[in-house]
């Protein structure tokens, strides 16, 4: 029953909240906010 519920949710709710992190904290920026 639980698997069926999960599969039904996959059909009915086709979007997923997501956070995508790009890169890592290596070096502090040389300019404020964003800047290389």
């Amino acid at each position, binding site marked *: 029953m639980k*698997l069926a519920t999960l*599969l*039904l949710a*996959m*059909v009915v*709710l*086709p*979007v*997923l*909240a*997501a*956070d*995508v*992190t*790009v*890169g*890592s*904290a*290596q*070096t*502090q*920026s040389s*300019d*404020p*906010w*964003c*800047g*290389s």
Partner: protein
Amino acid sequence: MRYQLVVLDDEIGGSMTVQSIAWQRAPAGASQGMYYVAKIYMGLCASDALSATFEDNWVPGSKTLVLDADTLSLSAAANEWEPVPLDVPFEYDGTGNLLVEVQWAAANPAYSFYTWKWETGAARSVKAGSVSSPTGILSTQMSELMLTGTMALEADTFAGIKTLFVPGGSE
């Protein structure tokens, strides 16, 4: 300031409705920043490496204004993420690289809000001191980012999903 960076399609992993973009504050400087006439554009880029000419990096027709603020205030403790909610969510279709351009006309000099960046190994960012500058300085380093939104799962039918679990593809 005019700043572009490119996020590769495989770093995002599929189509996404981008609702906010975040920077992680580095310990240097102040815990807040204030930027005037700030704009963020998103669109597509056909290459994995940028040109020094800003407008050449956009896939024609894809450049979209997603944030337009007279004053944009950023505030975060050291190493905290500071999300910037977009005025208009960006529908990234997952078929190319995501190009992000940040512009601001002036900043409050009392605050210097520094963020983390990383070495990408390719020319992934370009920056100029003026919004009106058509070209900038290329760099292999770019801001560390977090994109937040929703990702589409692969559309499928219930019967199709069942075949993934049933040996031989049938009951």
